[in-house]
């Protein structure tokens, strides 16, 4: 009984950690630009696919990972530079369509560059399951927890302890004020896309040994990350992490105890319920319209 629960919890935490990283990616970009980047899932896919093919081609894993992250960041920067920046002042729908267009474009490119097959990576440190109170934990899940945790700590440090990170936060609160004190808004935008792409790629790399990946893998991961970000309250980093974990765990429990077929629906059912009662997510700021 408990063992089964623990098992679901482990698997929920594993996917939840990835959703949290994706959600953070949404939050970072949203904060700096008020753009919802529907191509966030594609960064995850690119990270996983690029690493998998490079490893298959004989490159050592660490090098392959580093190169993939670099590639993903370059895609992120290109996306900002060529697709988002020229449309800076457009309305919500327009930018949503641009980023969806970008995601379709990237999927199409991935399908040509690679193929439509599923790819995997060997687990980073073996596949010997670890027994925990009757449940089993794959070593790769520990990697997922560890890396996600490290990334979150690093981000916290970046946003609270470095000049540039603080500048990025400042821009999200008040763009004009940030500009007045000399923060380069353009640079902040580029950095936010690069950072989100990096987060996506990290998530993609650590999860690929567990879930495998293919050119379409980014769609659902991206949408779940979006749910995580909205659940926590758009633009709230901590909220996105909590949101991601909630979505991951709820999904795992529901597929264990209710029906595995409805696993993918859970995230959206939760989000609808939350939005019905809390239109700004769990931790979102409640705004009063000024008229």
């Amino acid at each position, binding site marked *: 009984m408990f063992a089964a629960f623990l098992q679901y919890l482990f698997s929920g935490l594993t996917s939840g950690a990835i959703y949290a990283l994706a959600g953070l990616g949404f939050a970072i970009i949203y904060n700096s630009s008020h753009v919802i980047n529907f191509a966030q899932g594609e960064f995850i896919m690119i990270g996983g696919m690029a690493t998998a093919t490079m490893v298959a081609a004989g490159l050592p894993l660490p090098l392959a990972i580093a190169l993939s992250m670099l590639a993903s960041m370059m895609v992120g920067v290109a996306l900002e530079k060529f697709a988002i920046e020229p449309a800076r002042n457009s309305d919500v729908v327009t930018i949503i369509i641009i980023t969806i267009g970008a995601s379709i474009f990237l999927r199409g490119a991935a399908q040509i560059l690679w193929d439509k097959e599923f790819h995997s990576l060997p687990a980073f440190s073996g596949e010997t399951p670890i027994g925990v109170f009757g449940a089993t934990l794959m070593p790769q899940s520990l990697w997922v927890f560890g890396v996600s945790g490290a990334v979150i700590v690093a981000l916290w440090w970046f946003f609270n302890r470095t000049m540039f990170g603080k500048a990025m936060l400042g821009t999200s609160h008040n763009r004009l004020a940030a500009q007045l004190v000399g923060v380069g808004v353009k640079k902040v935008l580029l950095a936010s896309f690069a950072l989100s792409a990096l987060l996506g790629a990290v998530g993609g790399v650590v999860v690929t040994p567990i879930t495998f990946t293919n050119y379409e893998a980014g769609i659902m991961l991206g949408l779940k990350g979006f749910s995580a970000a909205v659940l926590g309250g758009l633009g709230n980093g901590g909220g996105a992490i909590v949101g991601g974990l909630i979505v991951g765990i709820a999904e795992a429990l529901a597929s264990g105890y209710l029906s595995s077929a409805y696993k993918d629906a859970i995230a*959206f059912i939760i989000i609808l319920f939350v939005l019905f009662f809390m239109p700004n997510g769990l931790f979102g700021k409640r705004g009063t319209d000024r008229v």
Partner: protein
Amino acid sequence: MLAVVITVAPLGFSNSYYYDVAVNAMFNAIVCVGLNLLIGYAGQISLGHAGFFALGAYGSALLTASWGLPPIAAMLISATVVGLLAFVVGRPILKLKGHYLAMATLGIGIIIHIVLKTEAKITGGPDGMSVDNFSLLGFTVMGDRMWYWVVGILLILTVWLALNLIDSPVGRALRAVHGSEVGAEVVGVDTSSYKVLVFVVSAVFASMVGSLFAHKNGFITPDIGSFMHSVELVVMVVLGGMASVFGALIGAVILTLLPQFLAVVEQYEAMILGAIMMGTMIFLPKGLLPSIVSAFKRREGGQ
């Protein structure tokens, strides 16, 4: 003018495949004219309308196959149910704004899609299910040509109704919701009710076209309710031109025809589609038709 185009176009159709594509284009056009009332005129986004389309299709398929209802009754019952569903979810959802609204509508669409895929006992699951011809009073609509004329008339009717609506008290209230909700409220416009109204209307449009699509195609799969199909519908509206009935129509036609042309470069199809979406939105953010119209106006003004 639209009537003329619809009448004349078939002269260029050398075989029934053209009719088939044209019917699909017109199906999409009807959905988009309805969806444009929501997105373009009332300014509310929906990333879940393919869900309503699919519900209409499956409603008709199930009611005619398992209950033996006549297609027209099946279509109207499905549309009523979809309308009710849209009404029930619309009230809380349409209080949301911007990205939150996008998320909620997206969620509804995805949930519908997953239900259709999963309840295999009823819907046949991912394998899909077949649907009979559409018949009314002993008269059966069959073949691409006949469908062409039927759907063509429906499209003209839809455009006429939409044009009427936009230039009416209700239509102005809808556009005012887009312009400024509080501005509309203080002169007596019950904005939440109007948002729900247009959400329901656009969902019913999608449902009815879904029903007809099911009969015309004879076979449906859950993927007609997928997120990607919802996105396609929104792209048609935005590409052609928001807040322009004919813009939505043109967007629908272009985006239906596009894959036919791109079939030549098969594997680059997705990339080109994505690039077109980005390019149009960056360079013509108002959409094709309004951009062209204003370019013409500028030209005339200059002379």
